[in-house]
């Protein structure tokens, strides 16, 4: 684990988790790997933040969990986006783009 670790901005974790789940249901470890993959290795999510985030989203009804066999036949808890989770993903994507736009403009202003 010698890769450079970037601290996740507060609030970006939920977006990344939702994004990671938008393709297919994944278990906790899978989500962590998928985030590393889609951020091209820049982000390594600690499980101490990932699991609380997942449980929070489950309470809010954005994701649903289901126990089933993993690819190598281990029982694992898979998370799946609900329709409200998909809606939330859209909202967070839009918010993020806005933040980036505003921040970029602010940083590049003279």
């Amino acid at each position, binding site marked *: 684990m010698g890769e450079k670790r970037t601290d996740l901005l507060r609030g970006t974790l939920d977006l990344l988790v939702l994004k990671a789940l938008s393709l297919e249901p994944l278990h*906790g*470890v899978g989500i962590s790997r998928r985030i590393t993959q889609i951020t091209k290795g820049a982000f390594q999510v600690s*499980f*101490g933040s990932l*699991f*609380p985030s997942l*449980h*929070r989203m489950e309470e809010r009804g954005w994701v649903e969990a289901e126990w089933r066999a993993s690819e190598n036949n281990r*029982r*694992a808890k898979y998370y799946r986006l609900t329709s409200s989770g998909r809606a939330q993903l859209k909202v967070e994507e839009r918010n993020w783009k806005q933040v980036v736009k505003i921040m970029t403009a602010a940083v590049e202003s003279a």
Partner: protein
Amino acid sequence: MPARIVSLFRNFLRKDTVEQTLDDELQSSVELLAEEKMKEGYSPSAARRQALIELGGVEQVKEEVRDIRLGRFLDNLARDLRFAFRTLAKSPGLTAVVVITLALGIGVNTAIFGIVNGMLLRPLPVRAPEQIMFLAAGQQGAPLQTYTVSYLDLVDYRNQVSTFSDLFAYEIALAGLSADGRAEEIAASYVTGNYFSAVGLRPTLGRLFLPGEGEKPGEAGMIVLGYSYWQKRFGGDPGVVGKQILVDGKPAVIVGVGPKGFGGMDSVLEMDVYLPLNRGPALDKGPTGTATIAASDSCAPTAD
């Protein structure tokens, strides 16, 4: 509203399941991670260790998740309570009726339970409470009633009845007790001399009345203190025995203190003190007085 209530209860009931699921989930994550490590070439035990390291401590993760769940739970609870109060505040009339109904219901139940507990559930703290009987008698054609007898009748019964091992009587009245320059009203039982011995009670301090004692007029005034009253009024002072006090203005000597936990034959009303029968209203008018006394008797297996 029902959905709110259901969700509130689900929060309570789900706690154990949540905990169990979290346990399983972390366990399976450790295994999944360990498998990855083994593919990278670690030995099974090293892979497991690496997996635990990457997970960052199973207990810590659990703690983080619990915080989320707890925070969520408290949020929900606060929201449910606010909702409940808002709903109640919207119809103050109905709320008042409900609150008063509940208050009265609980109050009445508590009072009834107090009486039932005293009279039926908790046995008298005496040697053989199941062998104490209250005499009851009825005239022809009239219903059976708790018996009250004159003292002379009681003497006759004692002489002629052989069914019971002993016959004692008592009468409850309020009296004024004055000691150390302070007077107060107390609940007193005026008792026959065998009141304590018939049911096998022993004194905490000094002595109790003796059979036959205090049933004739003109005897020196005596008093036995109830245990609680002794504690309350005299601070449990062991020096009270022999102390001179006034009962209804007449002198009496404290001869002893009753046993702990005993408060008279009627558990619903705790007696402060015990006085001889001859000080009570029944014998006030002399042995032929028509005032009545309640009689109870004990039929201990050993006849006397």
